[in-house]
């Protein structure tokens, strides 16, 4: 996925570009498609660039949807994309709770 010389077909607007994909951060299909054309080829990059999957639900609803959109845009199979890095905390957690963690 890190081949930055990958040739993409020119970006063409689609009628469903305004469809919300990431429900939490309200990111649309068009924004995700554009991000790919802006050079964001991996799910981790897309996530940092657009905040898809970084809202309250932490990508529990949209991960698979985002993946299929990016894959189609890149012209690859979704399973070629792997997944975005998984790291703690796995669920949204208030800062004050993390701050109280004394490692016990």
């Amino acid at each position, binding site marked *: 996925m890190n081949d930055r010389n990958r040739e993409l077909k020119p970006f063409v607007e689609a009628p469903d570009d305004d469809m919300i994909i990431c429900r939490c951060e309200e990111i649309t299909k068009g924004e995700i498609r554009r991000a790919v054309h802006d050079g964001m080829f991996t799910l981790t990059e897309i996530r940092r660039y657009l905040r898809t999957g970084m809202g309250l639900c932490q990508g529990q609803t949209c991960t698979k949807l985002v993946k299929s959109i990016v894959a189609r845009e890149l012209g690859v199979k979704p399973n070629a994309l792997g997944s975005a890095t*998984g790291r703690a905390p*796995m*669920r949204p*957690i208030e800062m004050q709770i993390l701050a109280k963690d004394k490692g016990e």
Partner: protein
Amino acid sequence: MKHYDMIIVGAGPAGLSAAIEAAKRGMKVVVYDENAKPGGQLFKQIHKFFGSREHYAKIRGFQIGEKLLAEASELGVEVVLDAIVIGIFPEKEVTVKIGEHVTHAKGDTILIATGASENMVTFPGWTLPGVIGAGAAQTMMNLHGVLPGHRVLMLGTGNVGLVVSFQLMQAGCEVVALADAAPRVGGYGVHASKVARCGVPFYLSHTIVSAEGEDHVTGVTIGQVDANWQIIEGSEKHFDVDTICLAVGLSPMSKLCDMAGCDMEDNPAKAGFVPVVDEYGETSVSGIYAAGDVSGIEEASSAMIEGRIAGIAAAVKLGYLSEAEGTAEIEKQKAALGGLRQGMFAPGMRGKQITETEEGIAISQNLLQYGFVSDEEVERFPGVTHSSGIHPVMECTQNIPCNPCQDACKNHCIKIGSHITSLPSVDPEAKCTGCGMCVAACSGQAIFLVREDCGDGTAEITLPYEFLPLPQKGEKGTALSRKGEAVCEAEVVGVRTAKVFDHTNLLTMKVPKEYAMKARFFRKGEPV
């Protein structure tokens, strides 16, 4: 930092089963679950499970959940609820948020049994209140006793979509239609048939065009899709609904495995991104196991066995069980798992189109397209025979791993044999007494008792009935066909309820004898 022999993430069927096996061997086990109640999705499953006795067949999901919980608690398993595992770190250190605190625990082994999450599809209006996941519908009606809606459209004809549609009707909702973009019903035919005979239309090769409504759903439009999944113009159908239920598959919730450093693979046969596991469920990280949907989407029945295998394997690893004993027990579990992984719906069959049964009988195409077996097709299956007295008619037409009907009949009228996926057949020599045990035992509600000719121009059909209010003896109503269409007037001549039937009531209706093989359901109210 607390220390355990085994830390289990997820108190669903896989996690609890593993905990039971590990604790049985003397291991100190903790199970963390982020929910307020244990059991995972088991407590929302109110239908009878498939399989054989060793798989808890013909027991309803929530009762299996109760059994597992009781067993775990007897063995002293510590189940911590509202406990969110937020990370797994090197040396098997786990951080858990419990209440307002983060605590750390270390396990000599870890089992990740986090289950699955629901897939979603997008369409204009999919974020409107009233569009819900099928799991949400189950949670509302089966756990909390609240109706998800009054008129519901279900998207998805996999087992979840079919089972939840039936449950919606049991709760008192009207299901206006089932739609699926796929050209064929994805779930068990018997689940489809029990929905279809209630009169719910199936729209295969159809998907949602849009959900309508300002602040919440007031309607939905579906349309037929072409080979490229595009809506065919002019095929749109509108339904007034207040709820749209989405049941479009599950994905393994495997992020924790990824984070724990397990080798992962994106495997379509397992329905997503899963840890690579060996035959014991052990991942590439020694001592970290995965079991249940997190390592590949299957039924709860197989999740329980995978959990048991992981629990036993962990006991061997830590020396609580000798290798010889462990191997013997694991082999037993594997055989049980092997039994479940047979037939037309086995994980290895995903995506394959099946045209005939193991017996060489052509599959009912009507079932795959419309959710019910046609009157003509049903005759070619071995469970459907004709005789002068009362006899079972088993409309079981697909090879699924299930055999309670065979054990249910004390007179050995029903034969499946040792091959669990074989279609049931009727032994013409054996004498049916009309006890109805087979009707109640069939998890697919596919067995009927039929007396084709009562001698007075009528026939009697006994069918499974799991709705309220229960019709009364003497009550007149309408007999419905397999498609759910009114075919004739019917009179209830008997209603049997018994503890052993476990809420599957046996309703016997009298119809003109020409409808003996056509009428399959009873609708209350004025005869049409």
